[in-house]
C-alpha cells in the first residue's frame, strides 16, 4: 500500500501496461519529453524511450487516426487528447471510425485502443477547456467509456482499458489530478462495467462519476449528520459497459434515485440512467428521480462563477433533502 496522487496513478497505470506488453505504445502532444501538460505522463519517455512514447504534431485527427490504424494491425495504442474539449476536432474518429469499423466489416476489423483525455471543470479554464464530455462518447454505439474517481481506479481501469479488445475512451478528471488515495502494491487490474457502492445507505441512491463522487460522498455525510438521511452513493465508473445491476439493485432497496452530473443538463448519462430506472424500476420508485447537473450553459472562467456552475456538496445535499422531505 502506498499513497499516490491521481496524476501519478496515470503514470503508474500506463507504465504497468507498457511493461507488460511491448505492443502498447503511447502518443500525444507534449506527452513525451515534456511529460505532459498535466504532468501525468512524466518519466514514461525516459522509461520506455522515444519509439514507444512519441510526441506528435498538433494534429488530433492524425493522432486518433494513427492510433486506429495501428490498433487494427496489431498494436495497442494509448492516445492522449490533451483536453477532452478537443475531442470535437477529431470527433469523426470517435463517432464514425473507431466504433463502426468492427460492425461494418462484419467482425473483421478490430480496434483495441485507449484514448485518454483530461476532462472536467474546476480549473478556471473557461468554456473551451473545462467541459465534461463523457456523454459525447456514451451516446455512440461501439465505444466503451470509463471515468475513474480515485488513484486506484485509475490504474485498475487503465489496465482494463488497455487490455480490452474494443476502443475505450478514458476520462481523467483534471481537478482530481492532485488528489491522493491509497493504492495497493503490485499489478492492479480492474474490470470495465462494474459500478462501486462507495457508501452504503438505505434512504436514496445517489449516482455520481469522477469529480462528482467525492462531492456526492460529502453531501451524503452532510445529509446524514444534518438530516439523518442515509444515502447510498454509487461511483458509476464505467458508462459503457454500464452496471445497471448494481444500480437497479440499489434502487430496489432505497426506492429513490438521484444522479449527480458535471456535464450540462441535456441528454446526459443521468438522463439515460433515470430513463432506465423509470422504465425498468418504475414500481420501485417512491418519488421522482432527480438529476442534479451543471445548468445547460457553457462554463464561465471566473472562479466564483465556475464554483456555482458545477454541482457542489451543498447543492447536492440541498436537492436531495428537499426532494426526500417534500
Amino acid at each position, binding site marked *: 500500500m502506498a499513497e499516490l496522487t491521481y496524476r501519478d496513478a496515470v503514470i503508474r497505470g500506463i507504465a504497468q501496461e507498457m511493461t507488460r506488453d511491448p505492443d502498447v505504445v503511447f502518443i500525444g502532444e507534449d506527452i513525451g519529453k515534456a511529460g505532459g501538460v498535466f504532468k501525468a505522463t512524466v518519466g514514461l519517455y525516459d522509461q520506455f524511450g522515444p519509439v514507444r512514447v512519441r510526441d506528435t*504534431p498538433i494534429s488530433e485527427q492524425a493522432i*486518433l487516426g494513427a492510433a486506429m*490504424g495501428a490498433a487494427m494491425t496489431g498494436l495497442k495504442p494509448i492516445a492522449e487528447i490533451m483536453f477532452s474539449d478537443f475531442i470535437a476536432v477529431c470527433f469523426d474518429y470517435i463517432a464514425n471510425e473507431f466504433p463502426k469499423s468492427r460492425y461494418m466489416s462484419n467482425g473483421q476489423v478490430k480496434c483495441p485502443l485507449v484514448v485518454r483525455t483530461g476532462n472536467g471543470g474546476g480549473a478556471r479554464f473557461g468554456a473551451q477547456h473545462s467541459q465534461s464530455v463523457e456523454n459525447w462518447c456514451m451516446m455512440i454505439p461501439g465505444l466503451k467509456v470509463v471515468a475513474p474517481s480515485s488513484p486506484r481506479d485509475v490504474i485498475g481501469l487503465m489496465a482494463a482499458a488497455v487490455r480490452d479488445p474494443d476502443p475505450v475512451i478514458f476520462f481523467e478528471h483534471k481537478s482530481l489530478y492532485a488528489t491522493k488515495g491509497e493504492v495497493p502494491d503490485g499489478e492492479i487490474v480492474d474490470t470495465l462495467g462494474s459500478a462501486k457502492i462507495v457508501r452504503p445507505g438505505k434512504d436514496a441512491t445517489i449516482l455520481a462519476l469522477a469529480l462528482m463522487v467525492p462531492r456526492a460522498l460529502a453531501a451524503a455525510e452532510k445529509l446524514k449528520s444534518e438530516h439523518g438521511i442515509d444515502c447510498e452513493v454509487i461511483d458509476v465508473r464505467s458508462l459503457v459497459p454500464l452496471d445497471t445491476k448494481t444500480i437497479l439493485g440499489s434502487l430496489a432497496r432505497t426506492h429513490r434515485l438521484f444522479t449527480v452530473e458535471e456535464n450540462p443538463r441535456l441528454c446526459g448519462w443521468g438522463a439515460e440512467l433515470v430513463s432506465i430506472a423509470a422504465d425498468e424500476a418504475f414500481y420501485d420508485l417512491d418519488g421522482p428521480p432527480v438529476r442534479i447537473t451543471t445548468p445547460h450553459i457553457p462554463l464561465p472562467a471566473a472562479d466564483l462563477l465556475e464554483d456555482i456552475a458545477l454541482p457542489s456538496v451543498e447543492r447536492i445535499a440541498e436537492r436531495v433533502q428537499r426532494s426526500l422531505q417534500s
Partner: protein
Amino acid sequence: MAKLEDRAPAPKGSLNDDIGEEKRLALYRTQVVIREAEQRAYDLFLQNLVKGTSHLSLGQEAVAAGFAGAMRPGDLSFCTYRGHAHTLARGVPIVQVLGELMGRDIGLMRGKGGSMHLTSVEHGVMGSYAIIGAHLPIACGAAWRAQYKGAKDVSVCFFGDGTTNIGAFHEALNFAAVWKLPVVFVCENNLYMEYTPISDVTAVKHPAADRAASYGLPRIVIDGNDADVVYRAAIEAYDKARAGGGPSLIECMTYRYSGHSRADPAKYRPEGELERWKERDPIKLYRERLRAFGVGEDAILRIDAEVKREVDEATEQCKAAAPPALDILTTDVYADGGFAWRN
C-alpha cells in the same frame, strides 16, 4: 483533356522489360475484372438489385490495377466509398463484392457494410471509408505499426482530388512525413468532386502534387490511365517506403465515366469531355500495347471471356443467394460478438 500536358509519354519498352509478360497479363486481367464487375454492378442497380448507393471506377481501372499489381501479399490497401476497384484488384472474389452490393449473406461483410465499406482483411483490404479524408491518418497508423514492428509491408491509401482540401489530408501528410512512415498516398484525380470541378475549389492546379512540397515530398503527377506507368510509380514508391525512405504522394490523372454515384447522371460535364477521355480508355490503351508488344489476340480474348464468365457466374450466384440472417443486426458491435452495453 485539359490535363494531358502533365502526362508522361507512353512508355517505351517491350514485353519482357522490367514489367514482363506475366505481370502485364495480370494487369490487363485486373482492369477487365474491374470494368466488367463495375458494369455489372451498374446493370444490377438498374434492375433494382443493388440498393443504396454505389460509386464506380469505370475509366479509372488502371490506377487500381497498377497499385495493387505492384503490391506484395501483406501490403495493405485503404480505400474510399469508391473502393470496388481496389478491393477487386487485391483478389477479393467478384461474388463477394457483388454479394455485398446486393445485400446478400455471401457478401464480403454479409450486407452489414454495403458498397461504401468493402473490407477484406484476409486480402489486405483494410477497409473502405466513406467520410472524406478519414482513412489517410488511419493508413498512417498501419504504417506506423509496420515501422514499429520492423515489418516490411507498405500501407497504400487511395483517395480523390476533392479529398485534398479536407483537414485530415494535411494532418496525415505531415504526420507521415515527420515520422517517415511507409505509406503511399495515391490521389486519383478524376477532375471532379461529386459534381463540382476540382479546379473551381482548389487554389492550385494539381490538388495533391502541388502540395507535396508542404510535406517535404517530391511532386509526382502520372498518367493514371496507363497501367504500366502506374505500376512503375507504385514500385518506386513501395521500394522507397520499404527502405525506410518515408511516404510518397502520387497524383494520378484519370477520369470516371459514370456519374459520381448511382444517383448522378453527370450532366455537369462539358460536352465532349467524356468522349475525349474515352479515346485514352485504360483498357483499350493496354490492349493495344499488349498487341503492339506481340501478345496474341487469342490470349487477350481468353482473358476477356474468362472474366466475363466469372462475372456472369458471380451474378447468378448472388441472385440466388439468401439475404443475411436477421440476427446479425446486433452482432459484432463489440469484440465479444454482441452489442451489450450493459449487464
